[in-house]
């Protein structure tokens, strides 16, 4: 289900625009973003149309925070997310919390000219499976971003495209 997945983290990551310097990136998170697309709440199950509304703000140089909600027609998930940009080797770290139990998930990766690539630091468990998550954020024209998440079952190798969303102001 939507609330059991750490994918939401990624949604927030993609709100980040073009500059590659940490201090420039974090300053561009301000504002309200609306996302449309789909998610697979049960990861390997059916797709569900989704909309998101998130608000971002810069907390410090190179650090930003986001909060908001994503909804399918029968469920809303609230979340909070923070991201740090490190100039050294263009690395990125992030943490998200969401769902009923407010679980925390940590991600790390790199940012580049076309976007950001992230991988979950530790696999997570759901419905008896051990899963890894990889998120790609791609910068689009007209101040928009697309995000996709690929979930892989560590044991069976099964792969699912779990998220596809586009965000704009």
């Amino acid at each position, binding site marked *: 289900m939507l609330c059991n997945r750490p994918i939401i983290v990624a949604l927030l990551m993609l709100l980040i625009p073009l500059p590659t310097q940490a201090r420039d990136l974090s300053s561009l998170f301000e504002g309200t973003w609306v996302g449309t697309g789909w998610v697979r709440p*049960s990861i390997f199950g059916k797709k569900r149309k989704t909309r*998101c509304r998130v608000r971002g703000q810069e907390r410090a140089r190179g650090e930003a925070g986001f909060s908001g909600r994503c909804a*399918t*027609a029968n469920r*809303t998930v609230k979340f909070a997310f923070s991201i740090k940009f490190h100039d050294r080797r263009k690395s990125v770290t992030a943490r998200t919390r969401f769902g009923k139990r407010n679980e925390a998930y940590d991600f790390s990766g790199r940012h580049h000219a076309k976007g950001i690539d992230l991988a979950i630091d530790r696999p997570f468990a759901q419905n008896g499976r051990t899963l890894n998550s990889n998120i790609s954020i791609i910068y689009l024209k007209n101040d928009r971003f697309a995000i996709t998440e690929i979930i892989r079952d560590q044991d069976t190798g099964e792969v699912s495209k779990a998220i596809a969303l586009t965000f704009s102001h």
Partner: protein
Amino acid sequence: MAGLNAVMGTVTALIQRSPLRVLLLLIPVLVVAVVGAGRITFDDGHRTVFTSSQIEYRDYLAFARNFSRNDNNVAVLISGSELLTGDDITHIHDLALDIHLIDGVDSVFSLFSLQHFDPENGEMIPLVEPGVPETGIRAALETAREPSYSGWSAVSTDLRETVMVISFEDAMEDLTRAAPALSELSRIALHTREKSGLEVSVTGLLPIRTQVIEGIKADQQWVNLVGAGFGFLVSLLFFRNVRIALLNGVAPVVALLLYLGFLGLSGLSIDVVNNTLPVLILVLASSDCTHMTYEIRRQYRQSGDLSAAIGNAVGDLAPACILTSLTTALAFASLFYSDTGIVRNFALAGVVGVTIALVAILTVHPLVFALAARFGFLRSTMSGTIRTQSPAIWPSRMFKTLLARRHVISAAGIVLCLCLLIAFLPVRTSYQFNENIDPANALVKTMDRVEAIAGPISSIDIPFALAPDLEPVSPTVLEEAQKIHTALEEMEGVHSVVSLQTIVRFLKAHDRPVNTTTVSDVLDLLPERYLHRIIGRDGKTLLFSAAVGNVDSQALRRFSEAITMKLAGMDFRALTPSRPTGLLTMGAHISDTMIRQLVVSFLIAAGVCSLLIGIWFRRLDFAVAAILPNILPIAAVGAWMTISGANVQFTSALALTIAFGIAVDDTVHVFNRLSLENGHRRNRLSFRTVSAAMARVGPALTTTTCILSAGLFAVVMSGMPMVRYFGALCIFTFFLALLADLFLLPALVGMTASEDDQEEEP
């Protein structure tokens, strides 16, 4: 009294000596009042109306802390002209998505919330989704018609309409916080309507409360204006002079402004209870100002000295004005007997308002006339011959006839009053949540339609405490929950029940095994709001909600008692029932106590006012005679409400107390005139004195009753039915009181009066 006269004499002399200086002092006060009036806040009273020390309120608070409430639910009705199609489903789906994202929305129940088990994937999936083939839509909608885990049905029987129930966060109970969310919801609804051609309507307690506040604001804008206008027209009718009618209206308008300024500066809100106070203050001040204007004109025509006329009129009428204000203030003060915050605030606002009106009458009214006299356009207006005979409408021979038949009339009055009191008491009360909004209002009609489809949105809620050693989902608890659920369902008038048993039935309907694991799994899937409509936040209480629809408070109390008795006859091991609670139940019980307390307040006011009159005039015969003519109208109106089945509502109980406080003013003016005619002596009155006094004061009483009634007639413009009802009751009571003062009071006074023209020495 001599001291009072001396003080009033000094004040009036000061006003007449330097009217311009007094005006200069008044102007900054008026400026502050205007600033204060601009800061007035409005409150529908929903959060405060039942705040009290009563046990039902404490039960409700405990319930609200532990369980989710339905108070902040908003319903959206989506209607198509025919069976909902695939495109309609897509548009409704988009609407649900957008609604979910509104800040303040906690959860949304819609036809997309309904799930069924997909054996192919081994998971629960939505029953209805965009993209379902047209051939499958009818079947899915027919399944969605059945009541769900929430107790609500999502689709109408003809499959043309669907309902969404939006639960807002508890903080949205504050309408200033809910306003942006409601506004965005309206915008989204309009967008869907335009895009899809479907009819989308929004209703629920939050929109209704918002509309009540808009109604209160509109009332303040228009009712006061129209009240002042009507008061002016009546003054014009009686004085037959535009200038006098205009001058007569200045002090009341100043009193209104000062009162509104007080409200704004003190932080007291205008709510559904005190909404009528501003226009009441206006008409009260108008009434006394009319008495004074009459007297100024009469004195001027007698003496030809305008300055002396103003001073003498104030001196003669000030005691009566002070006493009438005291009796009205006492009527308001009697409401402090209630332990409900909103009624006590009404009492405070009323006492202060009446005091402000009195100050305006005794200072601003003579000031207005002093200024008009100084600028010279009053003398010709006020001059004219004095009628040596009473107006034909109330000839003195009529009062002589009444005095001659005083025994019969007094006895008939007593018997009638007793009969009416017997019919009135014990009081039968009535309260409904939507009584402050018109039944023809679109929100109410949509709510009726929503409840016809989804079932009642409101419920009687019964918390059950778990035995200490048991978990909420355990075999013993599930077994007992089934018995309780079934017992409640079987009760007449209960539409549906939501409890843990609802989850068990959901599993059985989908051929799933029922055990603690499967039940817990389903509970885990529920949005938190729905979970806490079944299991308390403390994890130690279960809730059983019986949906009963929008019935009045009497029926609700009977339901509540029937449920308590039914549960008392059952044997429990795992669960212990608490008293039924919830917003409906609390309202039904507390409103009954509140209304009864208001009736007691009236009785207190009646007793104390009579005592005050006796002490003021230092005459026992006045105190005794004051009782019947003022209780009789109230008893008559109360008896009518009981016999007609309308019963006593919150507003009508308030109206009776306030109308009494105002109606007794006429009696005070009669006694004041009697006292003046008798030279303020305490000896036995004569028939001649009584009939002369009545003939003289009769026209003034009639005028002031017409002014009061005309001013209050303005409330028929109110968009709120209870305000209109309040106005109608007060007007009816005023005219009954006028008749009682004109026909019964002389007879009662005559019981201790002397028939001889020669007055007895004390």
